[in-house]
């Protein structure tokens, strides 16, 4: 018996390969254009216009005035400097804690799977929930942080201009260090064991082994983690917003919070679009620098 399927003849009502391909691809492309590309282009258009989303007036073309106003606004540079500080502190913290835990877990031990799973839980939560949860923990009256650190019950964190940023950074590190840990663990477990054995035969020190074997081989994955975390932290909004609302004063008012206020509280839609594009360009620029390093690390 011959079970070979007969080819579908489009003329007989079947769908050709091209039609099937189009049937799957075209809705996706249309969806992407509507959801991603159109808002991107529309916001670019609005960034060159004076317009409020709560007004019935039509947008008025103002050229690069919105960009000029944003870049000449000293508050923008204060916020940008603050965001950069937050990104640097948070990413350094996440890498140190995440990579450190990965080094500790990169060995055969009982309950390793369970410990790894438990450590990953924070990053599975919603940032807004984490923010609200930690807002309670930092509270001097009923939070657990002060008693654990032996601090008095009037030691304020989130309302103190010098400590609020640290509280936010520590919360961020708690949430996202597991992400760095996960990628580092993947990189560490991929390092061939014979390299360590060879180093041991040569009586290489722990530091020499770490510097010349572990770090170079794990660095591509570590850099990927750093790229992701840098980009994410530049956009950080919900966790900080729920914890401090950007305060005290402007001490935790990062770019995303300022942008939110400009767009949805002040309704300065044109200017906020310009702000968003400036942020986008900055994030792309910083990511490109990282990617160059990543390529170099891969080549080594």
């Amino acid at each position: 018996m011959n079970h070979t399927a007969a080819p579908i003849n489009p003329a007989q009502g079947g769908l050709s390969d091209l039609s099937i391909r189009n049937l799957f691809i075209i809705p996706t492309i249309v969806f992407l254009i509507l959801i991603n590309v159109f808002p991107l282009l529309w916001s670019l258009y609005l960034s060159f216009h004076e317009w409020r989303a709560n007004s019935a007036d039509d947008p008025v073309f103002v050229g690069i005035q919105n960009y000029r106003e944003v870049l000449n606004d000293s508050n923008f540079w204060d916020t940008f400097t603050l965001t950069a500080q937050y990104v640097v502190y948070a990413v350094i913290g996440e890498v140190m804690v995440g990579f450190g835990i990965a080094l500790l877990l990169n060995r055969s031990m009982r309950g390793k799977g369970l410990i790894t799973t438990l450590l990953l839980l924070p990053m599975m939560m919603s940032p807004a929930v984490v923010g609200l949860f930690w807002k309670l923990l930092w509270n001097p009256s009923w939070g657990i942080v002060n008693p654990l650190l032996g601090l008095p019950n009037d030691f304020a964190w989130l309302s103190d201009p010098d400590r609020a940023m640290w509280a936010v950074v520590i919360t961020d590190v708690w949430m996202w260090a597991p992400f760095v840990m996960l990628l580092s663990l993947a990189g560490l477990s991929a390092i061939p064991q014979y390299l360590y054995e060879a180093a041991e035969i040569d009586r290489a020190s722990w530091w020499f082994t770490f510097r010349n074997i572990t770090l170079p081989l794990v660095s591509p994955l570590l850099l990927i983690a750093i790229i992701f975390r840098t980009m994410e932290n530049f956009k950080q909004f919900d966790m900080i917003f729920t914890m401090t609302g950007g305060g005290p004063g402007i001490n935790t008012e990062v770019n995303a919070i300022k942008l939110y206020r400009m767009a949805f509280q002040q309704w300065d839609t044109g200017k906020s679009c310009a702000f968003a594009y400036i942020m986008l360009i900055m994030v792309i620029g910083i990511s490109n620098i990282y990617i160059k390093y990543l390529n170099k690390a891969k080549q080594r």
Partner: protein
Amino acid sequence: MQILRRLSLALFSLVFCGAVNAQSLTIFWAEWDPANQLQELADMYTEENGVEVVVETTPWPDFQTKTFTELTAKGTSFDIVVGDSQWLGAGATGGHYVEMTDFFAEHGVDKSMTEGTVTAYAEYPKGSKRYWAIPTEGDADGWSYRKDWFEDPKEMAAFKEKYGYDLGIPETWAQLRDIAEFFHRPDEGRYGVSIYTQKDYDALTMGIENVLWAFGGSLGDMANYKVQGLVNSPGSVEAIEFYKELYQFTPPDWGNTFFIEGNQAMTQGQVAMAMNYFAFFPALTNPKINPHAENTGYFANPAGPKGRFAALGGQGMSINSYISDEQKQLAWDFLEWFVKEENQYKWAEVGGFTCNANVLKSDAFLEATPYNKAFMESMFIVKDFWANPEYADLLESIQRNLHEYIVADKGTAQEALDNIANDWEAIFKKHGYSK
């Protein structure tokens, strides 16, 4: 054939349901108790008139965004919006709200409602006698306090010895400050006072307004858009410095607080007095929520050297200008019913905070809850923030600068107010209000 018949039936049902829905009215408001109370009142209207009225709600943080997104798109998903007083300018000048000036004259709304609420919830531009909303949910800042602490003989004696006068409901802001200081005992987990300090939207500004006007300060000349010398006047400086002094007597880490935290401070027995909108006081009378419910009392804002004022909360009902004429007529009919005095009594009975002067002064209203007397007093001393379409720009500057001074402890009150005056002047110039 069978399929065609079913399709016809479905189509008929859709058309028929659409016809039924045409006799219904949708009111859009934030998700909170007063919206449920308005639904109760609306059900009474439905019983009387047969027109279904649905109160649709959305959480507070989304309320403004959703309302203006719908209005800007000329949407008709709601017929009436119970909007914030600050939105009046945007609603009126943007063409989103239907003007109600003739309706006010015809039904005497400006006479039946208290003067302050008509100005704040309905009039734009201020002083123009043009109206855009029906004062609906009156609200203002007031205070809850711990009666048991205030009436404790030991505390009373100690207070009298320290300050030289009897401990009681404060009549002046200076007395309120003394009481806050007296009860501020961090070692015992007791604190003097809870005030608004949140930087988001308008929280801190609403708290400050209570003392600002009482000390002779100002938010500017709203008729002429003049701010220099008013916003940063000596009275304003004194008021801001006073508010910062009160901030010392709040529980620790009290730099990001609004109405939720105000009630929380009372229910957890943390503070002697807590500033809050009256709309949130019903929760404090419920022993299931507030273990100190029986010992919680209420009072209206005390007086300052230049008078007695309260920051306005609450909202008014405006008609969406983009709905059909038939829907507009339904909306007008409902509002005509709503403003009648007998229905304002019903509104108060279901828990709504009426703005009707006669109802406010009636014994039935005053005795209905432990806080209604204080609410009535407040409704005659309310004042509000700017309501022009750029109010959000003004809020951003005042919130940022005052938070920087009061919570972050940076600069002086004069510097903060000078910054605000300069920012506001620039905003008014940019939008063509002043040269």
